[in-house]
């Protein structure tokens, strides 16, 4: 399963780290809060409550950002009738790892499609760099295997 291709594709920003490379800082904070939450689905006020503890953030800001994430296809929502009345509740379309895999996959596919030969040459010419990359990849794989045990 991947992010709906009809929605906005994630933009990769090489200057940012981790999730913020694909999402804005606030979007990343909101998604992290939603992924880490045990409660599903979540209303805007629930997310606002969890973010309020670490940063001064307006309720309306959270509301409009979650609405934007819904329009991007990263969140889904439905109307729920509850204590506060009728309101939207949200849940992530993909869990965190799946989202990252999908986003990275989109970027890599695009790079390979447009610059496949350049990538191959880069890896061949920069053998030292490629060794570092290979070593890094092996370390990551080993860690994953150990976690799997």
């Amino acid at each position, binding site marked *: 399963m991947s992010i709906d291709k009809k929605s906005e594709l994630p933009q990769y920003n090489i200057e940012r780290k981790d999730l913020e490379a694909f999402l804005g800082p606030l979007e990343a904070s909101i998604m992290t809060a939603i992924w880490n939450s045990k409660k599903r689905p979540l*209303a*805007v*006020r629930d997310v*606002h409550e969890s973010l309020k503890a670490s940063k*001064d953030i*307006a*309720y*309306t*800001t959270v*509301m409009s950002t979650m609405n934007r994430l819904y329009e991007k296809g990263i969140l889904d929502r439905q*109307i729920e*009738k509850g*204590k*506060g*009345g*009728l*309101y*939207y509740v949200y849940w992530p379309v993909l869990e965190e790892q799946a989202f990252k895999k999908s986003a990275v996959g989109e970027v890599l596919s695009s790079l390979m499609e447009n610059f496949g030969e350049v990538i191959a040459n880069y890896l061949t010419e920069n053998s030292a760099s490629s060794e570092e990359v290979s070593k890094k990849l092996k370390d990551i794989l080993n860690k994953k295997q150990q976690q799997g045990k």
Partner: protein
Amino acid sequence: MLQSLFVQFFQPYFYFSIILLAAAYISIAVFLRFGTVSHRTRSLLLIAPLVIPAFIFIAYPPQFSITELVKTPLESTQSFFTLSSTQTAAPQTPVTLTLISFVTVPSVTGILCVSAVILCVSLFAVQVLFSEKIIKRLFRFISLSPNDYPNLQCKVSELARKLAIVAPKIGLIEDLRPNAFTVSSGRKAMIVFSTGLLDIVNEDELSAVIAHELAHIKNRDFLFKTVSSALTALCFYNPLAYFASSAAQREREFLADEKGIGQVANATALSSALAKISGVFKSMPKESTARFLAANLLVRSSLLRRPSILSSHPQLNQRLSNISVVNQKAPFNHRKALTATLLSILLVLASAGVVYQAAGVQQRYLSDNTFRPISINCTGQAFNVSSFNATSTFGMVNVNVTGTLNTTVAPAFITAGLSTATINQTLAIGGKP
């Protein structure tokens, strides 16, 4: 059963409060027919009669217990003896047959009265002291930070300044249904908006809604609602009180519309906002009963869908019609109003006279409350009661006993609890010993 109901409810407190209340509202209807008065005056006229039961309570405190007739069933007697004036028989063991007795039972009117007073005081206290906390918990509204809807906060401050009132706090509820309401009054006042409302109205319409809610605060409508709810609770057994209270609330809504227009100077914007809100509201599911009850008691809510006669809000077409004729009211006709006032006073006085006469009858009945058991005591004789019937009407107790008496002594000695009477005849016994 009818007798029992009559005794229970025919107390001055009960019929005075019901009949005088009805008379007062008929008078008000007659008065309003003849003259054009402001919505503020109408709302006060509709609430004023609800204080009547409070005065009647002081003048005619209800009784909390009444005396009821209890008839001893024939099958519960010890034994039957034959009463015959012609036969002779050996003396039998003395038997006392208690025919009827009286017991004291709680009075429904007294219970209703006490319940009404408790309800009135409790409701008033809850509304004044806890309304904000209850509403906050029930509606889960959020207090806005300075960065939330800055335009809205500016408008509220600006319009509050124009109305010369302290800018109220602002709350937000995450509800797709468009709504806005005020809670509490004075410095504790708060206006709460729903996200649904803020999404659909434009700048002018938002100003109109804000002005309407601020007008409620300016007019002290929360206090008015608190008092009228408490007075309605005092007459909770009287359906007329609910109709009158709802009608008074609707008048306050009209008043808030007028006041709001005076500040916004844009009746079109208010009409447009109301129409838009009503249209969206109709397509949404109704709110829960708990929220509705809380809103009815504790807030000034903008839109509630209920049958119009019991709704605290006028129908949309009535509001739009009222908005369109603001500043175009017909002049007050003094002669007609004077005629209406005199007719109203006469009507109330006539009603008071009628119930006062009825009170006299009722007082005679209730004052006779020292009954003693009525029994037939035939010492050393044999007697047989073949039929027995006892009825009680307005303090007069009629006892019919038929049968035969075995005795060599004539006439048989029979005592009734209240007076000596002759067997085989109707015993008409007065209410007093």
